[in-house]
């Protein structure tokens, strides 16, 4: 099993480290050719508007959509924004892989970035929010895996999932483990 990390901009290196700690093979993806060789894709944190421009520049838009039709995608923060079906503050294009509405920079600026402790079934997990978005709406087929102050912060729908925080910036590997398991359970 090989998992790709979209390496256009952002903290893709942190995701690769995390996947390696979990024993998964992780590679950087910057082109359609590289995307074709992986079984799952992580869209990292970073600036979503920058990633959108680079997806446009390199013509990766259609390849990403085709990939997501049959293989799992996991987005953190900017990645979650790119996966949403609706984006506000301001509105921007997205891949619409998850039936969620996301508001960018919803907590405010960097001064409002914070660390929370989320309750998961198997114990608390530390969640780092950096200029994070908030999921304002989830569709009926979206399952909420964790919430913070009433807002969903980790969601999944079918084989795809997204987190508005950065599990790649903490020691805990459980969020990534969940994704690795999803990729592993897909039919080849």
């Amino acid at each position: 099993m090989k998992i790709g990390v979209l390496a256009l901009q952002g903290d893709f290196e942190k995701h690769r480290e995390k996947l390696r700690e979990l024993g998964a093979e992780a590679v950087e993806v910057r082109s359609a050719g590289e995307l074709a060789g992986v079984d799952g894709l992580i869209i990292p944190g970073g600036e979503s508007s920058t990633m959108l421009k680079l997806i446009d520049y390199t013509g990766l838009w259609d390849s990403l959509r085709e990939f997501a039709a049959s293989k799992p995608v996991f987005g953190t923060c900017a990645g979650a924004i790119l996966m949403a079906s609706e984006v506000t503050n301001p509105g921007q294009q997205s891949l619409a892989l998850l039936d969620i509405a996301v508001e960018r920079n919803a907590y405010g600026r960097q001064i409002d970035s914070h660390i929370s402790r989320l309750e998961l079934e198997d114990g608390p997990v530390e969640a780092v929010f950096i200029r994070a978005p908030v999921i304002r709406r989830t569709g009926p087929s979206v399952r909420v895996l964790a919430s913070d102050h009433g807002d969903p912060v980790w969601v999944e729908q079918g084989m795809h999932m997204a987190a508005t925080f950065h599990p790649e910036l903490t020691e805990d590997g459980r969020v990534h483990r969940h994704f690795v398991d999803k990729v592993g359970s897909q039919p080849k």
Partner: protein
Amino acid sequence: MYFDEPFRLKVGLAEMLKGGVIMDVTNVEQAVIAENAGACAVMALERVPADIRKEGGVARMANIRIIRDIMGAVSIPVMAKARIGHFTEARVLEALGVDYVDESEVLTPADEEHHIDKRGFKIPFVCGARNLGEALRRIAEGAAMIRTKGEAGSGNIVEAVRHIRTIVKEMRQLTVLGHEELVAESKKLQAPLELVEMVAKTGKLPVPNFSAGGIATPADAALVMQLGAEAVFVGSGIFKSSDPEARAKAIVKAATYYQDPVKLLEASEEVGKAMDGLDIRQLGENELLQTRGW
């Protein structure tokens, strides 16, 4: 001691800027051009370094209205510069809510002995460095991101190359030393042993390591990234060129595809005439910006 929660949040934003281009802008129009080209952040200032160099006089923190207007116009992070040691300028920028403060040698230093004690702030700081000792001293003071100083406003990459090469080489050297040697190195570098040990263990700075100062072309950006920089700041290089929009886009592409010569060729073909450059050897010692700070 260093990586407490507030500091991890500061470093966290720097992590998000990796692989990106942070562009100097002096008004809303430029900020929008930068964002539309794919900048991952903008640096709001009154004059770009090339103009500061040309016009002389005292360079201070930018007019607050300019910074506020830019913060209102773009959705990407907005940084602003404070003078070295001018902690009240930094407090003003913190109250304004900018996303990063650059304690910058490009502005006229306010204190010739002390840098800002950055740990006491809620907003993160980036500082310039020419070598590993300088980088680690700034981190010890609370900087959450380091950038090479290069020679700002020169359009000449030679100093940024010197600085990134020096830092990377000094880091590599630490990785092969024994502990008693690290103690001696810590003394030589005038930097805390704890930070020296972190570098020795990983071969990397404990915070993101970016490059600035003299980047004018897509190839310049790719060069410093290949030498180990994790993102680039472009100051005068974009808005002092003949083609800011195209150049901004091309440098954004170069920061992503810095290892791909074909993509770099494409990016290089998209740009026109670069800013005029300066031969650093023709500059007097008192004209150098990089020697400010210590």
